[in-house]
């Protein structure tokens, strides 16, 4: 449990993964051209890219919700064939179960893992304490603010001790201050538990603040534009020169792609 016995993260291997899907009017859309990527065990990888670049498509394939048109994704030695409790996820819209209490949400996965009731409760309490919500254990989800809901979702994702956690723009719907606070919380929890994290965001400062490595995606069809290793010690000072340099580099890469993305949208609207 928790700090005492951290189950470490697992590496992810993405081999020639592409995704072509059929749009509503029957056209084939190439969302992702063959992507190759290695993510190390316990690494915090952030993926940034323009809207519609296929980063969510990639994440949903990593989580096992959809299958690649071609290529292979494996975790450790195992090929991903579907969603699994060993790979947790935090969603932008929180995805808490509104019919369960705060503790009930955190206990959900533990129950599915067959953890006995009293133990479940204790683990849920421990993780809710980690995100500072120990006084909201029996509250209903509808009574919480957006930031609190996402803290519950983070507690829920970590409580089952998965080896990997996927985060799909988890702080995208939150105000700037709550966002800043939760970024720090997340780093603290990640450092304590050493899970592999794949994090998607639109925010370049967020990517630099959190990531060991940042992957910039191209406009559709999505591929890897560049990979940037962030060599700044935590906690990272967002106003430092080093931080600003990373920002400049990533924005420069993104700007090319944004032009292409808007151009693509314009043509789609014109046609």
């Amino acid at each position, binding site marked *: 449990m928790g700090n005492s016995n951290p189950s470490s993260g697992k590496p992810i291997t993405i081999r020639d993964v592409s995704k072509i899907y059929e749009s509503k009017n029957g056209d084939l859309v190439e969302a992702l051209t063959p992507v190759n990527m290695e993510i190390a065990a316990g690494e915090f990888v952030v993926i940034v890219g323009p809207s519609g670049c296929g980063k969510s498509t990639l994440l949903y394939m990593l989580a096992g919700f959809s299958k690649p048109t071609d290529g292979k994704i494996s975790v450790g030695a195992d090929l991903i064939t579907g969603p699994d409790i060993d790979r947790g996820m935090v969603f932008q*819209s929180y995805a808490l*179960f*509104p019919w369960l209490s705060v503790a009930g949400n955190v206990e959900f996965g533990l129950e599915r893992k067959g953890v006995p009731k009293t133990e479940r409760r204790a683990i849920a309490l421990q993780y809710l304490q980690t995100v500072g919500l120990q006084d909201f254990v029996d509250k209903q989800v509808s009574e919480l603010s957006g930031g609190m809901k996402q803290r519950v979702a983070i507690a829920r994702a970590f409580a089952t001790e998965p080896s990997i956690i996927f985060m799909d723009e988890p702080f995208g719907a939150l105000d700037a201050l709550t966002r800043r606070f939760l970024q720090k919380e997340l780093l603290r929890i990640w450092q304590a538990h050493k899970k592999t994290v794949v994090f998607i965001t639109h925010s370049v400062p967020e990517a630099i603040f959190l990531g060991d490595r940042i992957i910039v995606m191209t406009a559709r069809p999505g591929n890897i534009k560049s990979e940037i290793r962030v060599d700044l010690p935590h906690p990272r000072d967002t106003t430092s020169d080093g931080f600003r340099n990373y920002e400049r580099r990533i924005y420069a890469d993104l700007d090319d792609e944004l032009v292409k993305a808007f151009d693509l949208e314009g043509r789609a609207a014109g046609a």
Partner: protein
Amino acid sequence: MKRIAFGLRGVVPLLLAATAIVIVWQMVVVITRAEPSLLPAPWSVAKTFAHLVGTGELLIDTGVSLARVVSAWLLSAIVAIPLGLAMGRSRALERIVDPVIELFRPISPLAWIPLAILWFGIGETGKVFIVIIGTFFPILLATVAGVKSIDSVLVHAGQVLGCNTPASLFRKVILPASLPSIVVGLRISFGTGWAAIIAAELVAARSGLGYLISNGMEILRADQVLVGMIMIGVLGVCFDAFFRYLNRRVIWST
């Protein structure tokens, strides 16, 4: 205390409305000098009400009608809820079943009464059949709508939290997520079932509130007809209040 006060707030407007209706009714009786066998005064209906309660007739007829509605409504629910859950999840099943429903749904349960009499006579089966027709579609449609409105992100959350079989996903996510909508369907269908049973009893029955009313018509006792009508209204309001309570207290809401 708070909850009692809340309950009173709901009852007071109903009592005021009832009082207003009785006043208007009395005025009509006085002004038009209505024939008592056609439009009796409120007071004489109240006396008939008390008399029918005293003889036990009213309670028996109410009980009979209620038993028919509840049994048929439960039978509908047992079939409609699982079918609705399956239809909500399976595009293929929905494509097959939906046109059938679309064809049957506009046919009022009342239009089935003649066939029900031909097929089942005037026994209990025919009436239960009519109420099943009247309750099945509202439950089914509400269930399908409930399942289809589930945010796919909740299903994904269930999957990454260990619901790795369709059965566990149904039990832990799909069913609880669609429950509020299902309860709405149960509430609406109880209302339609309650209306259908009265109609069925009006046409062919030897017991029940509908029979009490049609019998009152045959023996020219408008007071008895009105007692039956009042009972239908009061019980309808009570059931609705009960389901609303259930929805608020037992079922989650966002």
